[in-house]
């Protein structure tokens, strides 16, 4: 499996493999059901959960509405505290900035805190191309990196791997990256964790440059917040001499008071913990303590385009908890890789087509990767109505229309491959506007019922490949109604 998502096929094609992979299905089913139940318990403990959720939604909406103001305030605060702020319009610019900053230190390796933003821009690959090695220090990210794999979950990127597979990756790959796995390593969780700890410790102690993301950035003080549960983040944030953070512009919150809400909702939604184990906050640089140089790269990469969309912008509220992935029945069967992005699951299906546009096959197929069951919306701690955004994006794919791409207003053309569907929808619309035509069609179906096959050829196999067709009744309801209670209604 390659390390990038470039050139991914459409979702249904990519999902097919996962659906038929029994090991993967088992791994995903076990993991998602476990965390699902734990989350429900953790959330159920709070009597004011609905109000916290609403507060989180409002804080994010307010911040997004005044994002220009808060970002400038953040830049001023970070600068005043001794940090340097860089602005990156897209992934390439962010990668150039980070690479140049690392090279300026003269170092050729960096340690990384788990970060979605750096995954999104493909930073590790960009650094590699310039001769800089990036070491992932989050356990699951380490597993993915060692296995030359791709992340398949926002919070637990190696969720598609079981213990035995992880052991094999450690034994096979650790030696090439540093300290090898201990002799006779088994798949016991404690042994695996200890192997990772030993392997990573030498990286922490040696590294001069750390790279991280941010869960939140507080505008009023210029404080960055990283929420993690292994302690590796704390190591990377405090030991290196230079710290470089890459964060999406939507991660800003106005004040410390706002953090209070999210530090309750995020841990319960993501890891089902009442309180997050390692919450690191830092403000610029401090003499004789922590990194001597701090850089913050503020990343747009499609976010402003999403912000311009009345319906779609709510996806920018996301705090990356992954509760929506854990309850999603489609994610559970298709796995994270099928979504062709570092953002899989329901939130990925609404984020990727907004951040990247709907031009590629995978991005045009993501809005359809949902049965619209609504479980994601129900658990979202910032109340993103994911089904609403999915349907909105389906409209964009099927019908085109106005959108903002790279800061410019454009009118998108309908995606290819929807002509037959469009014709069918129009034909159905024509029939449904004419009750008599509908009735004629129903009668035709009823009269020919004995000729109907049990399975369908061609595109119809999408239905009858796994499901029998319903039998068409002798007469539609409206004929029965008219026959038995006829004339009563006056034909309205």
């Amino acid at each position, binding site marked *: 499996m390659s390390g990038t998502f470039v050139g991914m096929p459409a*979702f*249904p094609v990519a*999902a*097919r493999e996962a*659906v*038929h992979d029994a090991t993967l*299905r088992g791994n995903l089913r076990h993991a998602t059901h476990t965390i699902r139940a734990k989350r429900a318990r953790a959330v159920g403990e709070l009597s004011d959960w609905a109000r916290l959720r609403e507060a989180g939604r409002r804080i994010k909406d307010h911040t997004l509405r005044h994002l220009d103001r808060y970002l400038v305030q953040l830049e001023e605060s970070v600068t005043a505290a001794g940090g340097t702020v860089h602005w990156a319009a897209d992934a390439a610019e962010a990668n150039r900035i980070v690479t140049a900053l690392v090279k300026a230190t003269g170092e050729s390796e960096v340690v990384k805190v788990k970060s979605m933003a750096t995954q999104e821009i493909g930073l590790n690959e960009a650094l590699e191309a310039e001769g800089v090695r990036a070491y992932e220090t989050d356990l699951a990210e380490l597993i993915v990196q060692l296995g030359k794999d791709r992340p398949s979950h926002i919070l637990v990127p190696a969720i598609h791997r079981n213990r035995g597979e992880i052991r094999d990756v450690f034994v096979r790959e650790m030696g090439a990256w540093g300290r090898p796995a201990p002799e006779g390593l088994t798949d016991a969780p404690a042994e695996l964790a200890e192997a990772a700890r030993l392997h990573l410790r030498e990286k922490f102690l040696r590294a001069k440059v750390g790279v991280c993301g941010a869960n939140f950035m507080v505008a009023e003080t210029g404080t960055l917040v990283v929420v993690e549960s292994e302690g590796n983040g704390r190591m990377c944030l405090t030991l290196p001499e230079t710290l470089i953070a890459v964060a999406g512009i939507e991660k800003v919150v106005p004040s410390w008071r706002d953090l209070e809400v999210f530090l309750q909702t995020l841990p319960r939604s993501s890891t089902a913990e009442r309180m997050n184990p390692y919450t690191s906050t830092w403000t610029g640089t401090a003499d004789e303590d922590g990194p001597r140089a701090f850089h913050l790269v503020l990343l747009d990469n499609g976010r402003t385009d999403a912000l311009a969309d*009345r319906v779609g912008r709510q996806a920018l509220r996301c705090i990356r908890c992954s509760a929506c992935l854990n309850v999603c*029945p*489609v994610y559970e*069967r298709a796995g994270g890789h099928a979504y062709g992005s570092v953002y899989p699951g329901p939130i990925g299906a609404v984020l990727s087509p907004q951040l990247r546009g709907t031009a590629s096959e995978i991005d045009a197929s993501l*809005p*359809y*990767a*949902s*049965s*619209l*069951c*609504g*479980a994601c*919306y*129900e658990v979202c701690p910032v109340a993103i109505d994911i089904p*609403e955004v999915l*349907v909105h*994006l389906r*409209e*964009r794919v*099927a*019908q085109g229309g106005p959108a903002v791409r790279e800061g410019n207003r454009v009118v998108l053309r309908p995606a290819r491959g929807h002509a037959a*569907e*469009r014709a069918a*929808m129009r034909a*159905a*619309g024509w029939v*449904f*506007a004419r*009750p008599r035509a*509908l009735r004629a069609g129903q009668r035709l179906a009823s009269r020919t019922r004995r000729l109907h096959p049990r399975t369908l050829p061609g*595109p119809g196999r*999408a*239905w009858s*490949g*796994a*499901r*029998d067709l*319903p039998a*068409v*009744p002798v*007469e*539609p*309801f*409206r004929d*029965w*109604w*008219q026959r038995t*209670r006829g004339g*009563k*209604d006056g*034909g*309205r």
Partner: protein
Amino acid sequence: MRVALFLTCVNDTLYPDTGRAVVALLSRLGVDVDFPMGQTCCGQAHYNTGYRHEAEPLARHFADVFRGYDAIVTPSGSCGAMVRELYPRMGERARAEGRGDSLAAALAPVVHRTYELTEFLVDVLGVTDVGACYPHRVTYHPTCHGLRGLGLGDRPRRLLEAVRGLELVELPGADECCGFGGTFALKNAEVSAAMGADKVRNAESTGAEVLCAADNSCLMHIGGTMSRLRTGMRPVHIAEILASTQEEAAA
């Protein structure tokens, strides 16, 4: 009270028994129900597949046909949710596109008068014991739009629990989607089928003869999967259970 049956195009065409059951049930409860012949489709499939503009004339047609009734009753959670949740949203969207209030105004009268069948029974008629008899082992699948869209809650369960002879057994993973999802069943056939197979396996594990739900679209998918997997279980709409009486059950 003028009560209209909004049967839905799927039920009208493929599941007339459900329509007859609703009429029998409501008549037994003293409700004179009308079936406006002009009714066709609420536009849900168009809307959810990304054809909102094509759904608008269907919504207007719906409002035209059902205007003037005090209650519009439908045996479909998803079509009920379409009218109640998504018609107002269509109106808002049209307004945001600079097309004024005309759509919102046209749809408004029908939105709050539309009830899913179990809501109408429990909330409007105030009954949970509808005098039904159905001597079978039944498991209940709450469909997504009924459960999370309309918030039907325990209404269907309360109605089923009051049915004489009916043994209600818990469905494991009940609140998980069956995998139908309208055009999802075709566009993502493999994932949809996998979800359906899991739902059917869970249903089988209960030992029930019947899987009951309040939406025939989901039952078409679940039932089609049941018969393909040769389970011997059958899908039955809740209206047909609630309409069953002693005489029929004995026969």
